[in-house]
Structure formats: C-alpha cells, structure tokens
C-alpha cells in the first residue's frame, strides 16, 4: 500500500521534464527455441513499426491506438528492466509476446518450438553512428500448448 502511494506522488507533484534528454532507447527482440537449453540462433524484433502510415491512419489512431499504447508500455517495462530488473517488468513483456504468439500475430510454423526468450537491445548514437548492444536476457519461458492457452 505504501509503495502504491509512493507511485501516486509523481502524479500529484509532477516533474514535467518531458524529453529533457534523449536517453538510449530499448528494443525488444525474441527467439523461439525447441528446448530450454538450446542456444538461440536468430532474434526477431518484437512488434516492428510499420514502414509507412497514412495521415488518415494517424487520424484514426487519435481515437483507437491500443496496439501502439501497449508497445509504449512495453518500452517503459524495458526501461525499468534496464534500470532495476524486476520480475513484474519481465513478466509484462513475456506475457505480451506469448499473447502475440498464441493469436498468430507472431507466426510459428515449427511444431518443435517449445520455449521463448527475449532480450533487450539498447540503441544509442555515438557521433554519427547508431550502436545497438544487448543489455538484458530474460529467463527461458515454456510456451503453453495452443489448446491450453
């Protein structure tokens, strides 16, 4: 309860320091594994942004933008994980990858896939060059069988 009230204080006395510095930005990537101890072979970007968005689509998102707002929450969880790793933040990201996997948003044609892991890359600019470095690896999560989801 005390912790929740502490979370309320920044709303009552806000700092309003929007975009004061442009901090290194996290990206979430995931890999599908056929065994808990399998070495990851390839990593895929979770929820890649579309190449283009028309103005009409942007207008529509003024009223209906659940997917993007969830992606922003995932980015917040990733930032929290980079600062202070917690089970909560890791689970929030993991659950959303599992949901996308169960609903077919993430395609998985291989029947051998049984486990999931994600990692966080941090993207930052060094001079004129962008650099991406892995900074966090999640635990390996068993994927529930489709009929159990």
């Amino acid at each position, binding site marked *: 309860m005390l912790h929740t009230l502490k979370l*309320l204080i920044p709303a009552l006395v806000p700092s309003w320091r929007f975009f004061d510095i*442009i901090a290194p930005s996290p990206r979430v990537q995931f890999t599908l594994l056929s065994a808990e101890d399998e070495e990851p072979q390839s990593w895929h970007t979770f929820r890649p942004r579309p190449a283009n968005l028309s103005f009409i689509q942007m207008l529509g998102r003024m009223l209906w933008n659940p997917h993007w*707002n969830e992606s922003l929450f995932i980015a917040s969880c990733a930032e929290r994980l980079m600062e202070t790793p917690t089970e909560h933040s890791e689970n929030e990201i993991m659950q959303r990858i599992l949901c996308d996997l169960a609903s077919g948003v993430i395609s998985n044609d291989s029947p051998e896939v049984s486990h999931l892991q994600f990692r966080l890359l941090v993207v930052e600019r060094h001079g004129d060059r962008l650099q991406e470095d892995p900074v966090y690896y999640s635990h390996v999560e068993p994927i529930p069988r489709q009929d159990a989801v």
Partner: protein
Amino acid sequence: MSFEVAIRWTEILLGFAFAQQSLEHLYAKAGARALFFARLLLAILLIVGIQTAWAAYLLLLLALVMLHRFQGPYNGGADRMGLLILCCLCLVYFLPTQRWKEIAFGYLALQLVLSYFISGWVKIVNSDWRNGTALRDVFIFSAYPVSGSLRAWSESPRALFILSWGVILFELLFPVSLLSNISLAIALVIAAIFHFSNACLFGLNRFFWVWVAAYPSILWFQNRIMATGY
C-alpha cells in the same frame, strides 16, 4: 468561464479521455479487463453527470489499483496528468468551502502552466535541444516515431532546428498567454495542435485528450485572476 461550468467541462472531457483509454485496454489481450470495464462505466457517469463525485472517488480508487497492477503509470505522463486532474476534481467535491475548492482547481491550472513552462526550461538549458540534435535523436533512434518513414525526418537538420526552437519558445512563453482571454485562447489552440502533432507522429494520442481535459481549469483560472486580481 464560471467555476461550475469549468468543473462540468472537466468532468466531461476527463470522462471521455478515461473512456477512450478503457476501451483500448478492453481490446488488449494481456490487460486487466475487469478493471477497465469498471473504469469505463464510471467514466460514462462522469460524462453524463450522474453521481459525479462518487464516480470520481471510485475512479481514484481504481487508479491506485492500476498503479499497483502496472507498478507505475501505464502510459507515463498522460496517465499522471489524468490522475492529477482526477485528484483535483475529488478535492473540489470533498473540500467544504468554495475558497478551498477553488484552491484545488487552481492547483490544476498552475500545474498545466508548469507542464509547458518546465518542459521548455529543461530543453533550453540543454545544448542538444538548442542546436536541434535532441529532436534529431528523437526521430533517428527513439521508440516514438510511429513508422519507419518518419525516421527520415532526422535527415532534415535545418527543419528540426526550427521545430526545436518553435517548441522551446512556445513552451517557455505559455505563461505569458495568461495576460488576456484572447492570448490564452490562441495559446491553447497552438498547444492542442502541438499535442495533435505528437499524437500523429509519435502515437501519443492519450496526451492529447488528457491535456485538453485540463484546459477548462486554466480558462476559469485566467478569468478568476483577471476579474479579482488574486
């Protein structure tokens, strides 16, 4: 704008913002659906004006549960502003005298002014903002641009330099707009366009609706200050 009218408009606009957010959550697969269904019903009560005080108290209780559920705000600054407006509304309903009610609502107006001014201040003291590099970084590698093609805006440094200074000057000068009804109305239209642009470019649609919900407080506050001088 009278105090009563400003409160009623705040209820309607905040109710709309909460309803919009709740509908989005009801669609999300991993969200806390029961919480947001209750929030949607309470937001509708705020909009239609039925039992608004009790609706606001229960919305505040739900907000605390959500803070616990997500271990912080779900959508950063937008959720914090929504919570601030809600707390100020609850105080207006709860406090016993008109003077204290006005102090609570005036606090919201003050925070709205600070939300622009402090945002401008932290930018102008940062050399990366003054030379346009910070806005370039927003487009080139931050998580915010809604499409890959928007990343190309980072290749227009002159335009980003002008945009940076436009944002900084608007935010810093916002408090000056309180000098008259007309200047405040113009500033609020510009501010709404600014939030609309952020919603289009960075997908921050919730900021638009929540910040607009705080505008009645500043319209009332400005009238109050100009009419009485304190």
